[in-house]
Structure formats: C-alpha cells, structure tokens
C-alpha cells in the first residue's frame, strides 16, 4: 500500500465533489418516472466515491508525512482561511467507513418506500450529507472544518424532519438545536484561536498544522478547549449531552439512522482526535480525568438504559451511547494502544450499527413496528435475516473473531495500562452489552412465533447482497485488524507525541492525570 498517486489530480477534493455532484444530478431527475435512474445515479456516485477512497488508501503511505495529498487554495485571505484538504491516517479510515456506509445505505434501501416526499429528495440529501462529512474528515483548515461541520446539520435535519416517523418535527428540531448550540460554542473557540493566532504569527491562520505549533497562556487554552469540547461532546454524544440521539434515531429512517450514528457521530470523536489533542494538548491533559469519568458514566448509563428499552431503534441509540463512551475513553487515556483501539472501534461500531439498523429496518418495514414486544420467532420465518442480525449483534457485544472485539479489547488494554480502576469499571460494560444484545436477539428472533410475525418474509437476494459486505468486513477486520491498524498507528503515535501525558508503562490504581505519570 505505498504506490503514490499522481499529484496533479486533487484526490482529496475529488472525493468530496463526487457525492456532491451526484446529489445535484439526482435533483435533476425529478419526474416520478425517473426514480429508477435517480437510484442508479445515486448508487453510482456513492460507489465512485468508495472507489476513490480505496484508491486514496492504496496511494497513502502510512509511514510517510502526517498529511498527504494536500490541496490548498486561498479562500478568505483577510481571515487567513484557505480551502485546504488533505488526508491523514485517521481521516483516511473515516473516509473509507463513510463511503462504505453511504453506498451500503443506498443499496440496502433500494426497494424501501420513502414515507413522505420523493425518493429523489431523500437520495440527494443522503449524498450531500456524505459529501459534507467527507469534507469534514479531509479538511485541514479549521475554518473550513467548522463551516462544513455546521453545514452537515442541514441535510440531517431535513432527512429526519421530512422523512422520519410521527414525531419527526420534534426530533429534527431537538437535533438541530443541540447541534447549533455546540456549533456556536465552537464558533466562540474558533474566534479565540483566530485572535490568538493573529497575536502569535502576526497574521491570522486557520491551518491545523500551523496552529498545532502555537502556544497559548493556560487560561486561554482552557477556555478555547471548552468551546471545542462542547461541540464534539454533543456530536459524539457524551453523557449528559446525549439526549437528542435516541429521539433522532427513533424518528429516522434506518438509512438516516445509519448515517447519523455510523458516520455523523464519529465526527465528534474525530474532532477530539485532530483538534483537541494536537491543538490544545495541555488543556486536554488537564481535563482528561473529567472526560474519562463522563465516558465511564456513558458506558454504564447507556448500557443500562439500552437494557430497558422497548423500541429497537432507541435500543440501538443507547448502545451507541455506551460504545461512544468506550471510544472517548480510548482517546482520553492517552496510551498508544487505547488510541489505536478507539479509532478501530469507530470503524467496527460504524459497520455493526449500520447492519443492525438496516436489518432491523427490513423487519420493521414488513411488520410496521419498532417495538420489541411485537416480534418473536422471526428466525422461523426468515433464517437468513435472523443470521445477519445475529452477526451484527455479536460484533456489537465484542465476540472474538469479529471486528468489535478488537476495538473493545485494545481500548480496555490501554485503559488498564493507565489505571486499573478505570479499566475495571469499563470492563463491566462488556457484561452489560452481552445482556442487552443477547436478550434482544432472544426476544425478537427466537421463541414462539408472535401474531403478525408470520407475515415476515426472508430478505431478498438484493438486500442480502447489500448488507453482506458489512458481515464480510466485520469478519475480515476481526481476523486481520492490521489492515486498519497499520493505517492509523503512525497517526495515533504522532497525535500522542504532542500530548504531554507521557506513556503509561506501568499501570497505577487511579492515575488519570498524565503529567506525573511515568
């Protein structure tokens, strides 16, 4: 994986533009008769983006410089803003995940009727969401990052608000208001950085690489840290800022929920990795104990609430709250293993959650209910559907051999290196995960046939083919995690090297503040 690509082609921009052009093209295929053409156009665009992502992965040199294929042109010189896009190991992995999931969603919902509005509108919004999220992952200018971060709310807002369930308006507004509050906090932090960079360099800059070299006074750094942290914690979402997620997920279509939880929420953790840690390392170390405690609360709280849910989509949302606790924990214990694990975990979680939502979506579209009590004995009617669901569930509860295990194991290993207590508390999350997942499978898939379930039919070949790659990827990553880890390891090392927390060679009982640690 080290063949370098011709640099004359702006790969990183191209990959953002392809879904965007697809979205525009789909809006032109407006007539009801062109629905089929619109689906193929959207699918083609998402596949092309995936292909470009793979090409980018092949051309990426993990051991090479941190930012590769950098494309940059000035946008607002007065503010020091330039449109610059480049790829790092971390962003490459996120780009791969995004393009895989977008293509999967479009394929998996091929025959799914869109409840309100037009299929074309739905597809255009999905594609523009994909483009904006890809832009966020690839942006190397903080201002551009912020602009895209805010802009990606709009497609999600319309996806929930127009195509969602009965309480869609409420869920959409709740989502938007939470996100806007986070966005405004980030705006304040951004302005703070702008003023600081002007003082430090003599002219303002938003270039992430340049900003990483800037030192600030301790109070300023901490204030700015809070602005970014609020935005990312809402997006991630971290307890106690998570309450928008269950509503948004429950009112979304399965495809929207997949993009929302599988991709969009990763932006929060991604922001922590590429902004909080490199740009504000001292504040990150200072606040790490607080973040770790919140993450631990999230792991347990999300899992306990997931056990108590009666609605499948809400259950998945709460499992995600628990999993995001693990991921954030992996980032903020500042050990190499845990950070690799956290990034890996994001990929594994994205794949398995997508599978859960999409397979459950098949079920729900036939039975017309998201309530767990409406199901029972589905495996008698649709064994393949039940099998696909089981694989996703097993990866979610971290069964060895599936991708979920690697991520969770690495995060826990890293956590134990830092602090035994944190490790022990986090490990209980695994037990709870087994309860909520297996119990769900038991209630929905096995047991006596519930009335109404006899109408459930097996997944079609097309549907199985759409979700199948997810299973394959979960297995592949479960057995060969090195494919992803080799990409992220150098980037994670670089990120950690800038954090003055040291490496935790020997575990300690409570050691959370990294400064004094060995």
């Amino acid at each position, binding site marked *: 994986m080290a063949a370098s690509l011709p640099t004359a082609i702006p790969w990183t921009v191209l990959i953002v533009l392809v879904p965007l052009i697809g979205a525009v093209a789909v809006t032109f295929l407006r007539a009801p008769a062109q629905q089929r053409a619109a689906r193929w156009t959207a699918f083609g665009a998402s596949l092309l983006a995936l292909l470009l992502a793979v090409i980018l992965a092949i051309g990426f040199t993990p051991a090479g410089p941190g930012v590769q294929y950098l494309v940059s042109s000035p*946008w*607002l010189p007065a503010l020091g803003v330039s449109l610059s896009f480049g790829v790092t190991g971390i962003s490459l992995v996120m780009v791969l995940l995004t393009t895989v999931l977008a293509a999967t969603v479009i394929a998996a919902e091929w025959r799914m009727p869109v409840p309100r509005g037009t299929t074309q509108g739905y597809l255009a919004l999905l594609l523009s969401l994909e483009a904006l999220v890809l832009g966020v992952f690839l942006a190397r200018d903080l201002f551009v990052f912020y602009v895209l971060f*805010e*802009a990606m709310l709009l497609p999600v807002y319309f996806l929930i608000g127009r195509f969602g369930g009965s309480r869609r308006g409420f869920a959409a507004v709740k989502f938007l208001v939470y996100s*806007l509050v986070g966005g405004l*906090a980030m705006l*304040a932090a951004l302005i703070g950085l702008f*003023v600081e960079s002007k003082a430090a360099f003599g002219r303002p800059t938003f270039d992430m690489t340049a900003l990483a070299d800037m030192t600030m006074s301790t109070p300023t750094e901490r204030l700015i840290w809070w602005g970014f942290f609020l935005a990312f914690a809402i997006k991630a979402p971290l307890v106690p800022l998570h309450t928008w997620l269950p509503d948004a997920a429950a009112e979304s279509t399965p495809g929207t929920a997949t993009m929302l939880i599988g991709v969009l929420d990763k932006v929060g953790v991604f922001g922590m990795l590429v902004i909080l840690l490199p740009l504000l390392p001292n504040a990150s170390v200072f606040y790490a104990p607080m973040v770790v405690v919140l993450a631990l609360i999230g792991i347990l709280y999300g899992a306990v609430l997931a056990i108590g849910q009666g609605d499948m989509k809400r259950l998945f949302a709460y499992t995600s709250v628990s999993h995001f606790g693990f991921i954030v924990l992996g980032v903020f214990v500042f050990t190499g293993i845990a950070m690799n694990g956290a990034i890996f975990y994001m990929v594994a979680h994205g794949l398995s959650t997508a599978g859960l939502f999409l397979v459950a979506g098949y079920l729900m579209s036939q039975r017309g209910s998201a309530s767990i009590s409406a199901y029972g004995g589905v495996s008698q009617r649709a064994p393949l559907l039940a099998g696909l669901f089981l694989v996703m569930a097993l990866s979610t509860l971290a069964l060895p051999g599936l991708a979920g295990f690697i991520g969770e194991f690495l995060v826990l290993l890293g956590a134990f290196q830092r602090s035994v207590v944190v490790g022990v508390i986090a490990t209980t999350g695994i037990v709870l995960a087994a309860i909520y997942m297996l119990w769900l499978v038991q209630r929905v898939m096995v047991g006596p046939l519930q009335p109404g379930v006899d109408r459930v039919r097996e997944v079609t070949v097309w549907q199985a083919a759409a979700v199948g790659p997810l299973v394959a990827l979960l297995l592949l990553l479960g057995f060969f995690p090195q494919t992803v880890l080799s990409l992220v390891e150098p980037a994670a090392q670089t990120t950690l090297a800038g954090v003055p927390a040291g490496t935790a060679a020997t575990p300690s009982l409570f050691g959370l503040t990294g400064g004094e640690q060995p």
Partner: protein
Amino acid sequence: MTPISVVDIDYVALAPVIIVLVAAVIGVLLEAFLPEAARRSGQLLLTGSAVALAFLTVLIVAASRPFGPIAGGSLMLDGPGLFLQGLILLTSGTAILIMADRRVDPGGDAFAGRVSTLPGGEEEREVSRRGLMQTEVWPLMLFCIGGLLLFVTSNDLLTLFIALEILSLPLYLLVGMARRRRLLSQEAALKYFLMGALASAILLFGSALAYAYAGTIEFAGIAERISERTTANTLVIAAVALILVGLLFKIGAVPFGQWVPDVYQGAPTPVTGFMAAAVKVAAVGALLRVLYVPFGGMRWEWEPVLWIVASLTMLIGSLVALAQSDIKRMLAYSSIANAGFILIGVAAADQVGLSSVLFYLLAYSVATLAAFGIVTMVRVPTGEATSLEQWAGIGRRSPLLATAFSLILLSFAGIPLTAGFIAKFGVFTAAITAGALPLVIVGIVASAIAAALYVRIIVRMYFTDPVSASAGVASPSPLTVAGVGLGVALTVILGVFPQPVLNLVEQTSIFVR
C-alpha cells in the same frame, strides 16, 4: 461686525444628496401637474432614475474626490460615509422595487388609495372600487432617502438634527398609509410620530448641552475640546447620554426600541422593509460617527453603556421574538436582536470594529429587505398572511419561495456559507480583539436562542401539514422578484465569496476627523 464669508461648496461631492432632493421636489410638482393616468409611471421613472443616478454619483465621488469636509464643514466626505451612502441607495432602490409591485395585492399596491378617507367608510369603498392609487409615496420616499444620505455624512450636531428630521417626517407619513388593516397602520404612525418627536427632542437637548460644553457644534471642535479635558465633566457626560438615547431610539435598541414591533407590524410591509434596512443603516452610521469622531475621546464613559445596551438588545430581542405569532412582529424583534449584534461591533470602537459593522449592515440590510419582500407575497384573501400559523406547509406549495426565505433565516441565524455568518464572525472577532469577551459570550447565547426561533419557522414551512386557513403565494411582478432575488443572491454570494467586500470595508473604515 465680521463679514459673512462665502462658503465654498463642492457641488460634485454633494451631488448624490442634491440629485435625490431635487428629484423629490420635482416629484411634488409632478403630483400637481401630471394627469392622473400618467402620474404613477412618471413618479416611478423619476424615483427609480434618481436613486440609480445618485448611486452612480456616489461611485464617481468615491473615485475622484479627495476626502475631507465639504459644504463649509457641515458634511464630511470620507470612506464610511460614502460606503453607507452607497448602501442606503442600494437598499432604498431594492425597497422601491418591492413598493412598486401592484400584482401581489389584487387591490393595487401596498398603499391606501386615498389616505384621507375614513377607514371602513363609504368613501374608501368608492376609492377601492375605482381602483385609485395614490402616488405621493414616491416624493416622500425621495425626501426620506435624502435625509438618510445627509444623516450619515453630517459633520456637526445641527446638520445631524436637521437630517434626522428630514428623514423622519416623511417616514411618519409612510407608516400610516397601509392599504390593509388601516387602523393598525394609522395607530402605528401616531405612535411612531409621538415617540420619534420625543427622541428628536432628547437628541436636540443633548446637542445643546454639548454646545454649552464645547462652545461649538462641529464634530472636530468637540473632539478637540474633549481631548483637552482633565476631569470628568457632568455637562458633557449628560450631552453624550442624551445624544446616545436619541440615536439608539432610531436604531431600535432596548430599552429605546419599544416602538419597533408596533410600527413594523402596522406599516405597509415594503415600508417596514425600508425602515428595517435603509433607516437602520443610516442610524447606525450616524451613531458610529458621533461616537468615534466627536466623542471618541470619551470611549471609557460610553463603552460600558453600550455593553449593557447591546447585551439587553440581543437577549430581549431574541427571547421576545421567540414568543411571537405574527411574522412581521417576529421580524421586528429579530431586527432588534440584530441591532444588538451590530452594537457589539460598535462597542469594539476601533477600525476593525468599524469595518465589521459596515459588513454586518450590508449583510443584514439586504437579507431584511428580501424577508419583508417575501412577506408581501404570502397572502390570504384579506391581505398578507401575517399569522405564523398560516405559513404552515408553504414549503410544499411554493418550494422556491420557501427556500429563499429559509436562506435568509439561516443568514439571520449566522449559519456558515451565508452572509450572516461572516458578519457575525466579524463583529465577534472585533469585540474579542478589543477585550469584550463577555459581550461575545452573551452574543453567542443570544445567537443560540435566535437560531431556535428561525428553525421553528423553517419547520413550519416544510414539516407542518397545511391547515385550512393556510396562505397562498401570490405571483409577484418582476419588480418584487428582482428585489427579493437581489437580497437572496447577495446573502449567498457574501457568504461564499466575501473577500472583495471584506477588502472594501477594510479600506473604507477610517473616519476623517
């Protein structure tokens, strides 16, 4: 006895004002001498060409004339003044386009056929049956625009006051001329007149105190006198306070903006748009000059006041807007909130602050005009659909209009890629650089509240099912389309490619003292 010296007047530099005011006088004569059938088109032609010509002249003056006092020192020719004059003419021109529309209202244009008739009376029915339209609005508009142009360039306190009166008197009349809901409109006019007269008196009193202190009414002289002082002087502080009240009244800042919702609601909608855009631009422009030039040396005295006023204006404007059920009242409170954001930039009190305010004014005024233009198009049989409930489901019946309105609301909310974002970023940055971090935090809280407000309206347009009383969208004439289209286009263009305008405001943002 000293001989009366002849004042040297640079007529070219004065040309924009002269063109507009001469056209206004000609307009009055046209009223008297033109036959009724030709009056409307004649007035429109005159008004439109006068404003366009004045705009061109502003460009020529900016390119060719040296900066400095003109007209014997009563007016000042400088970067901010010319920028604001250009902006006033641009927004006035757009407002005129929307005013001239007579297709959206089946009865004619937005103004009462004969203002003197009794609302609901027999005579009024007769007028509307004959489809009469009055054309006095056009000369009134021109007088008002002339006043606005003087207001932002006035260089002494007396000229400032006279300009204020020239712009206010026609405005009081314009507010009372609505074709629909005439009683509301007349009530608004009376309220505006009484409160406005009081504010003018306060401003005049403040000017008198300033004269008593400094012995001159010229801005430069006052600045000099203030820079020489060694102790705080009650007289001059009282003068600044009273002048501030008078100007903040016109801007509509809390607590001096109580009139804004009633007047904006009652006035004919195109006039509301004109007031919210052009008049506010001029008022902020005058405030900037008064605070920076004559009273710049008293920054430490007026800055805390401005902090409090700005915070209150942002918070109360956004919060109360959230509780409105009438679209025009909602936009009125939103314009109050925006005035608060503008005051953040004013409070920064330096060149960066000034240029950020100029950009904000541009972004805000074009979006506001387009917003009120859109309000004129959404109608029920009895007039405009002012109740927000009637806007349900507009997005499905008229996607283009709903998209345009959403873009404007997103710009008000300060979402990136709209002009409103660059504008807010500018004033916040200026304020932080000037050490006003608390003000920025209040601003961000207020932005969050306001964002919830704008989002609610977008939800209503797109996601709520239409109710039986829902409004329809009248097909507008090309005039309104042009006016609204210009506003929406500028909102997007300034959001994506703001660099040329940012350069412009940076170059123009120095007051000549």
